[in-house]
């Protein structure tokens, strides 16, 4: 248990450092830093333990869909740690002809299941994949990560309704509930403080956790349910980069060399 915890911690620390490396590489093109850092712990646990993208080969892997595609740096950073993306490729981020743009571009070879970034689409895709697994009697699971702001999209609720209708117990949806969206807090832009209640009323199996507590994330993900499962993960936007925490100016921004170095130093302490 302690060993597993250390493994998670080290993996997630490297994921956060990678996020900062990518952000630095983006330069003046800027990167979605805040929302990538907020879901780094969730995605670290998912990729370290649940997706099994490397060890289970192409067909047996579980599927992860980053519906909040602007958090691509968290995804790329996990894939770097898993060896699917070479560390040198970090420097190509958002550059001409790069495989790693500011929103994920489908590339199964390096572990990107779908092109996402237009919000509200990932859960529908996940339901389609989960239905296909049921249809083919496969044991694979599907994980979809949504943003809380993303839940403004009507299409999310179309899919939320249908996942329960289709009895998809192989589907887990996680909301990175960092409380912010592009131009303000959820409270300022579109109130959704009772988000867990909304999903409960749709008859999902709902868990509310601290999205930076590794044990809570792991426990919630490991629950076997007979319904689609929703994890509302309360998180801090910009988590791990002190100057960015709870500061929405870091939603999409540039990081200076000094800020990068300070950030990496803090993470290593």
């Amino acid at each position, binding site marked *: 248990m302690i060993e597993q915890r250390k493994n998670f911690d080290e993996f997630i620390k490297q994921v956060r450092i990678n996020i900062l490396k990518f952000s630095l590489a983006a330069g003046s093109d800027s990167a979605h830093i805040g929302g990538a850092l907020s879901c780094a712990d969730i995605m670290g646990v998912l990729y370290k333990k649940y997706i099994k993208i490397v060890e289970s080969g192409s067909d047996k892997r579980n599927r992860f869909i980053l519906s909040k595609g602007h958090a691509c740096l968290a995804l790329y950073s996990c894939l770097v740690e898993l060896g699917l993306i070479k560390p040198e490729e970090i420097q190509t981020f958002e550059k001409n002809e790069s495989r790693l743009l500011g929103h994920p571009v*489908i590339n199964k070879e390096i572990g990107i*299941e*779908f*092109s996402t970034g*237009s919000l*509200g*689409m990932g*859960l*529908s*895709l*996940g*339901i*389609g*994949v*989960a*239905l*296909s*697994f049921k*249809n*083919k009697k496969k044991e694979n699971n599907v994980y979809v990560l949504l943003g809380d702001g993303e839940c403004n999209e*009507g*299409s999310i609720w*179309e*899919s939320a*309704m*249908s996942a329960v*209708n*289709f009895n998809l117990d192989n589907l887990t949806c996680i909301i990175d509930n960092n409380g912010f969206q592009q131009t303000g807090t959820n409270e300022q832009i579109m109130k959704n403080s009772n988000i867990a209640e909304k999903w409960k009323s749709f008859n999902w199996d709902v868990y509310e956790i601290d999205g930076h507590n590794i044990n809570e994330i792991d426990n919630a993900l490991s629950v076997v349910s007979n319904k689609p499962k929703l994890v509302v993960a309360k998180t801090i936007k910009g988590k791990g980069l002190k100057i960015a925490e709870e500061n929405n100016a870091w939603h999409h921004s540039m990081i200076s060399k000094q800020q990068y170095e300070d950030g990496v130093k803090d993470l290593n302490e």
Partner: protein
Amino acid sequence: MNKFYNTNSFKLWSKLGQRAVFGLGMLEIIKKHKDLIVVTADVSTSAGLDRFRKNFKDNYVDVGIAEQNMIGIAAGMASEGHKVITTTFSPFQTLRCSEQIKVMLGYMKIKVVMVGLASGLVLGPLGFTHCSIEDISLLRSIPNISIVCPSDPTEVIKATEASINYDRSVYIRLTGSSNTRQIYAEDYDFKIGESITLKNGTDISIISNGSIIAECLDTANFLETKGISVEVINMHTIKPLDKKKLNEIFLNKKLIVSVEEHNVIGGLSSSIAEEMSELKNKPPLIKIGINDFYSSGGSYEFLKSVYKIKSEDISNTILKYYEQS
């Protein structure tokens, strides 16, 4: 592929119309594609799929009245190797979920066959929420999606089979009512992207598609009595266009007339005009279709008159042009 029909079927099918025959055909097509999934948005009856829904439960997904989710689920299943057909009424199959179509079928190139029911003007009594005169224009601008407009129920079956086996996503646009005109008496080869000459003629080429092509055949026969020789081309595929045939027409005909049950902006006439735009010497193109306005609603026949796409209107338009030039 073994055929499940013969020329005797064609006559019956024309009575049933394009929509009902699509549903009927799926009962046979599923036998050849066991992993095929039909995803609908609460329209099994409208698509003639009631028997399919009952008999092939594992191959049928109803997402309810939620078309964005329909495309997402279809794309998700297709990405895991299923052949997938989606279907609902044309406006909801295209415009309502257009960005999902762009991202999933266009950008990601996930292959799904979309069947737009009752496109054009046939739902005129229900008003223009349900008519569909913009679908081709919208989808044509999305890369990696082909568009097919079958002329009669037989061609719906052929287009559906061809689309399932095609290497990219296809939108099949169903038009016309029941008791629609039977265009094909004999069996024939259908290939996506290859137009079909329904009638030969030397002076004018009428290029059309969908069930409205019946009006064009009547026009062509009428103009023959006036001493004008008219060919009728079934340009059933709007994308990819049969450029070879078009360029042959551009070279050899004095006049081209396009006839479409769609806005004249962005559909068949636009496609033809775009293809001929760089030629130095080209015949004139008369664009007959819906002239970019929503009329008052009404019956199919009434609306075809309003938009001047009935055979006598098409004949008059052509004769008027002929007399002036």
